[in-house]
């Protein structure tokens, strides 16, 4: 299989450049803090203010609600952020790192690894707020919460897989970012971030939406373990795990094959 060799090289490079990725991610996070004093506060303020906006719109304007709505929407928003930031950040990734690329060889997906560490860190920060919100809104805790890393891992590899593919095409297609932004908006509304797909969408379609859209699926799984104390759907999680690996294999193979010509194009 072509994939296995590419994947082997990928893991080899991951190990080799792991320190670089971590250091680059840390340095980026640190630069965000030092450039303005209150910047790290935005890591909290950003999801909280969006949560308040959606809570207002849905509860006051549309007069509908879900159980524990603020926590409900907060889970949706933070999961969405991880996915959408990785995806939209990947399109111009190679171009933004042109200095490094022209100077020294590095596997180009390492740039995405480092970027995704930044988003993962921010995700974990805002996820600690979920616990605070759960206490505040008296959501009963259940042991199912321990499934949290599994679901996070799935949404992470799917975001990363999409990111590798897009970072390849982003080099050659100039206006890709415009299209991706529109598509992301679409996926945003189809992911049930501020509504429950299961009850708001008519019968056969709601199942399909949650099964076929990985973001909607992962958000739904997070809500199950945090809000409803239900068991996650392990079978579907496993299938999306496979899908994520396939995405990564495709993206990494594309990058392995073409990365050395990136410097000629950008």
């Amino acid at each position, binding site marked *: 299989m072509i994939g296995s060799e590419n994947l082997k090289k990928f893991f080899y490079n991951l190990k080799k*450049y792991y*320190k*670089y990725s971590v*250091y*680059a991610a840390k*340095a*980026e996070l*640190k*630069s965000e803090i030092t*450039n303005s004093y209150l910047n790290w506060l935005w890591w909290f303020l950003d999801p909280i203010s969006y949560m308040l906006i959606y809570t207002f719109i849905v509860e006051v304007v549309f007069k509908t609600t879900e159980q524990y709505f603020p926590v409900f929407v907060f889970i949706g928003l933070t999961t969405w952020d991880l996915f959408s930031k990785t995806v939209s950040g990947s399109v111009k990734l190679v171009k933004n*790192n042109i*200095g*490094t*690329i*022209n*100077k*020294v*060889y*590095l596997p180009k997906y390492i740039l995405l690894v480092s970027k995704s560490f930044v988003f993962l860190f921010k995700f974990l920060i805002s996820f600690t707020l979920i616990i605070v919100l759960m206490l505040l809104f008296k959501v009963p805790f259940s042991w199912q919460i321990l499934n949290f890393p599994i679901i996070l891992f799935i949404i992470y590899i799917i975001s990363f897989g999409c990111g590798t593919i897009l970072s390849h095409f982003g080099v*050659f*297609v*100039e*206006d*890709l970012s415009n*299209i991706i932004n529109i598509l992301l908006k679409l996926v945003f509304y189809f992911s049930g971030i501020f509504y429950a797909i299961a009850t708001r969408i008519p019968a056969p379609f709601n199942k399909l939406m949650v099964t076929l859209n990985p973001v909607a699926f992962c958000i739904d799984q997070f809500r199950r373990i945090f809000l409803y104390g239900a068991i996650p759907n392990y079978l579907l999680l496993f299938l999306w795990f496979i899908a994520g690996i396939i995405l990564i294999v495709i993206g990494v193979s594309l990058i392995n094959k073409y990365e*050395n*010509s990136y*410097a*000629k*194009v950008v």
Partner: protein
Amino acid sequence: MTNAIEVSDLYVSYKGLKKISIKQSIAKFKFNQTEIFEALKGVSFNVEEGKILGIIGKNGSGKSTLLRAISGIFSPDKGNVNLNNHSISLLSIGVGFQTKLTGYENIILSGLLLGFSEEEIRKKIPKIIEFSELGDFIYKPVRTYSSGMYSKLSFSITAILETDIILIDEVLSVGDIHFKEKSSKKMNEIIKDETKTVVIVSHNMSTMRELCDKILWLNDGVVMEIGDTNDVISHYEEFMKTLNK
């Protein structure tokens, strides 16, 4: 003596790599027009360990492409480059920093990418900072640097971190008069170091005569001549004179 660099039958072309936009391709109903520009056409040569090779040729003859192909930034379309496991770095003007990050962080990131461990880099950092003469600016983001400071830092990193093979693209001196002197002195030190293999691209024939063991003359992607420094340079100079007539 073993070879540090072995280049055999190297072809590099820029083909079909024009950027496309979706809007354009819809308007024209075709996706990809291939335009082939062959930058290197079958270049072969070896550089022995510890030797200094100079590359000369008129503008656009493929010198920088050759350096980038050797350092692995470009992949060759045909042929290959064998470095026999030597570490390599490319020194060229004004590239390679993440401007949001501080000079200090950029030193570590550059070092990690060049294949050094974090301890090795940390050990050499005081020397790099001292050589670059940036003082406290080293803890400020690189985007606040003047162009002189930028190239000083870039030079200091490559000069102090010292990989086995050093490729130099037109930077034998950077910064103000004082730093120029200092950097060319350091450069000479590195170049004369017998454990370092150096490839220099320059248009300055007098420095090339002074420094190089061997000269490679590239013209339109083909090796015109390779051999003794004085011979090749005088042939090249005669050739350039005929162009002016």
